[in-house]
């Protein structure tokens, strides 16, 4: 299996990942991403029936911490806002969801 990404595929993916693609970049991305998909398609040749997937390699399971407040780790409001482009009354200003 090797997929070719059309402009409408690219537009759909870009929307899913919240990126804007310049009109003049569509051809470049389309050819590069198609080349990458062509490269990774060789995975389909490997028999994987009944093979469990691996998501992590530590072997650790259910790592817990005590349910207590970790004061030194908590940022002050001033620190938390220190890098925000826009704040209002000690809060982050976020883009409007509803106009």
């Amino acid at each position, binding site marked *: *299996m090797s997929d070719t*990404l059309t402009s409408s*595929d*690219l537009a759909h*993916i*870009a929307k*899913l*990942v*919240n*990126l*804007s*693609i310049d009109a003049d970049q569509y051809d470049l*991305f389309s050819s*590069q*991403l198609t*080349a*990458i*998909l062509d*490269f*990774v*398609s*060789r*995975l*389909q*040749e*490997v028999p*994987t029936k009944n*093979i*469990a*997937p*691996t*998501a*992590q*390699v*530590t072997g*650790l399971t259910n*790592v817990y*911490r005590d349910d207590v407040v970790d004061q030194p*780790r908590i*940022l002050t409001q001033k*620190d*938390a806002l*220190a*890098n*925000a*482009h826009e704040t209002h009354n000690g809060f*982050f*200003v*976020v*883009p409007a969801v509803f106009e």
Partner: protein
Amino acid sequence: MKMEIKALTIQSALAGLRTKQFTAVDVVGACLTNVKKFNEDYQALLAVVDEDVLMAQAKDIDATDYSLPLSGIPIVLKDLFTSDGIRTTAGSKVLEQYVPVFDATVVAKLKAAGAIIIGKANQDAWGHGSSGENSDYTPTKNPYDPSRVPGGSSSGSAAAVALGMCLAATGTDTGSSVRLPAAFCNLVGLKPTYGRVSRYGIIAMASSFDTIGHITKTVYDNALICEITAGKDAYDATTSEIPVPQYTNKLDIKLQGVKIGLPKEYFGLHGMDPRVSDVTRTAIKKLEDLGARIVDVSLPHTSVAMACYYILVPSEVSSNLARFDGVRFGNGRETFGMEAKRRMMIGTYALSSGYYDAYYKTAAQIRTLIKKDFDDVFGAVDVLVAPSSPTLPFAIGQKSNDPVAMYLSDIFMCPVNIAGVPAVNVPCGFVGDLPVGMQIIGPQFGEERIYQIASIYEKETQWYKKTPKI
């Protein structure tokens, strides 16, 4: 006093400080001189801490008896390492103005050990790259030949050590990013076992692959830093409880009886530069002369490892970079560079409805097979030895428009991250003036053994003494 920082190791610097041959002010001053001399041409650092601040820190250390493990040692941090009060860009324009308000665990540990943080190293943005050319700022140049790449993504880290701007630099290794620049700049670079060193405060690339390493001139220096950075961290649940050995006390062993495996798939690779092959074979012969037993082994799924990596890693990248919305910190998503966009789009595609089973799930199943390849082979041998790169440091621009060709620079390294095992790059010779590196790969938490073998080889060969002609 005047000192040659390019040739100074941490071990000899500590000895010099402790016997009052020079001061921390001397060492930091010599590093800053090299920053001023070389940074404009080589673009190794993206931020340098104010000279007055550094000199005050050095004076404070000079008022002590240098008893901390890294007292007065100048260190550069890769720009993925969150550093309190020092601009941290991840090599990206998204974080061009970001000044963190806390330290990564590793940064806090290095400071507590007496290290002096000189500045932040240039890199491929977000760690995406093998050459340094994907920096959203200016590509770093190789100190051994400025027309060539220094390797990436920890490009500035390696260049800064080779140029004598510091005595060690931190790096991250998700697919090659510590080992490749170490190989291309004649340095020792560790990719630790996944879970050995805390990821807390390191800007994430691919969370199940990211490992936190460092680059030094010698194996001893590298082992010394690992003793400090490794260990359980309550802020990173994937770190291991397994105790951290005193690696530096255990470097002297004999190679007699040690079994070294050569993965046949790595040595028969089409496209391998025969000059790199020759240098690597000579190094393996040296290990054999020193008493090691060399055996051929097989990692059967090597041919699909890169394809597996380039589905799983972009998938995790797309998820991690989704968090950058320009609200709490950083600029908007329009400021991402081309490679970050490519990876986010591939990852999003691989995870999207209708394609998940064919791409992500299949790759995760193949990850199981690749990990099993390594588990099986470490039942039969102590370590694996392989070339670090199939080629010499390549020319700037040579691969920058062909993502797949760039990805294949890491063909001997990415499988190690898929399996989560440790590996170290050790300098193993030169072709002309260009360095060649060799990888020693160990089983999970086998850092001690790979350091031992690297140390014996280094003592015999001392390639690190060949510094760049600058």
